[in-house]
């Protein structure tokens, strides 16, 4: 585990820069994590994805199925890649403060 610091943000992250304590997430954290994912400015479209992921995570305790993310936000998968270059699971979930899914995935 390492400490990730940027501006006023200081959070514990794993080897790939995912938050270790998702309950400490806030919008400033999202912006700071975005900068590690090649997302310098979080636009309304970014927030639409991030907020959906966040709400889903709080309700269900894991990341949503990628198809569900696309359907609910109205973005096609390639548009999500345009927003978050490393994709929904690695880029978008990281910015939204979700843990990495593990197992046969």
């Amino acid at each position, binding site marked *: 585990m390492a400490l990730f610091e940027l501006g006023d943000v200081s959070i514990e992250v794993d*080897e790939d820069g995912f938050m270790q304590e998702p309950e400490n997430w806030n919008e400033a954290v999202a912006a700071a994590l975005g900068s590690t994912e090649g997302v310098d400015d979080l636009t309304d479209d970014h927030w639409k994805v991030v907020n959906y992921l966040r709400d889903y995570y709080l309700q269900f305790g894991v990341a949503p199925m990628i*198809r569900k993310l696309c359907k609910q936000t109205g973005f096609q998968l390639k548009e999500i890649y345009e927003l978050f270059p490393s994709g929904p699971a690695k880029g978008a979930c990281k910015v939204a403060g979700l843990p990495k899914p593990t197992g046969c*995935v």
Partner: protein
Amino acid sequence: MAEKSPQELIQIDLTPPPRKWMNPAVDFEARRGTWSYPGGVKSLDYLGMPNVREWSPTDADWKLPENWQQIIHDGFKDLLKKYRTLEIFMDICVRCGACADKCHFFIGSGDPKNMPVLRAELLRSIYRKDFTAAGKILGSLAGARELTEEVLKEWYYYFFQCTECRRCSVYCPYGIDTAEITMMARELMNLVGLNINWIMEPVANCKRTGNHLGIQPHTYKDNVEFMCDELEDVTGIKLDPPINRKGAEILFVIPSADYFADPGTYTFVGYLMLFEHIGLDYTLSSYASDGGNFGLFNTAENMKKLNWKIYHEAKRLGVKWILGGECGHMWRVMHQYMDTMNGPADFLEVPRSPITGTVFENTTSTKMTHICEFTSDLIKHNKLKLDKSRNDQFRVTFHDSCNPARAMGFLEEPRYVIENVCNHFYEMPENTIREHTFCCAGGAGLGNDENMEMRMRGGLPRGNAVRWVRDHHGVNRLTCICAIDRATLPPLVEYWSPGVDVSGIHELVGNALIMEGEKERTTDIRGVPVQPEKGEQDDV
């Protein structure tokens, strides 16, 4: 994706390293991309594993317990007492080298310590020193060496660079099960707190929620309903699969990725369509919600616990028998370990197909039957209405998933199903299929991103065989019967054989099934428009 290009990666240097093999030094920093991150503190604490701490393989100090050598020595002694096979495997190898070039990791890396014989020697040399008279007296002359911290670090590197696929074992004239050697080495490493997160987090999740992904019951239900809604859009058929239903005849157990990640999700709806088609009395379970068992890659104790969950649920629900989905290592656990760990499952009945009356006597002890066997039997008795032409856009090949193939001898049933639901099926070269099958290089807990270079190296032989059928027969669909495959083969083929898609077999079954009340099928069950190219589908 691996940072090196396929062209760079294929420049494999076969020059033996300058250091003598007995005198190791693994530079983890220089070898990033070929090893996995250690187990996370939260998961290890949850499981009550020993020596929980923050550490990294790149640290000079691995924070081992003070008496770590004694712990491993005692652990080794216990394992030798417990498993007669271990002593035989340690003593019997004559280092003939038949296995040497059979490992996908050796083929793709050229690293001599990925020859199964030498990987096993890493453990065997310590066995000789600690437990044989010749080794104690003659030391390195008898192939024995001290267990130093450098040796232990090398264990971590190479025993987490084996996918326990058992291809090498097929060629061993003594029948040494090299996967079990890796399993024993991992057991020993666990005693001093050396394990990897891609195994430990799934094990912890599975203990807590019944599946590797940590999916809770309400999420399970939500995912199942979402997939059924999506399927309705495509087929017009509304499925309402039962979950946790007491009194069902059959409990159906699948790998958790099948209800979480594409393309497994399409295999999942394929299963459900089949059950609807034949009117099966079954239930899913949000508790026995993973057939996969990462305990197999960790310790016998954890494997046993995670396996028991399935039987506990079968008992709770009062089912007669268990049907298992397209999961790979679940079948190694079921077929080769379940009976002596948790069996026999006397409270269940010997599986009998309620549709055909066939009794699956091969599963008398575990009471758990493979879905491909169940579906083959339905096809053989002409119980399914199938339209093969609905898969005409696919030119299909089949990757024998390691564990069903080599741990069960499960070779014909998947092919029988494929050939009855598709018109275009092509085999990869014969030394790469059936019991000779090449691994996806991401099994046994190694399917994580930080290990991507090693996965692509180990994936070279499989990728090369896929490329061959792609180029010679226009193959565009690689099928498999394992969820780890469905997760790890897509990046592998993208790297070594672009243009080929991956799926389970029951996705193709779902495409071909003529369902009562369905609307005209203009797409496959992924919703991709069907584009039959009649006349262009002749064999190349």
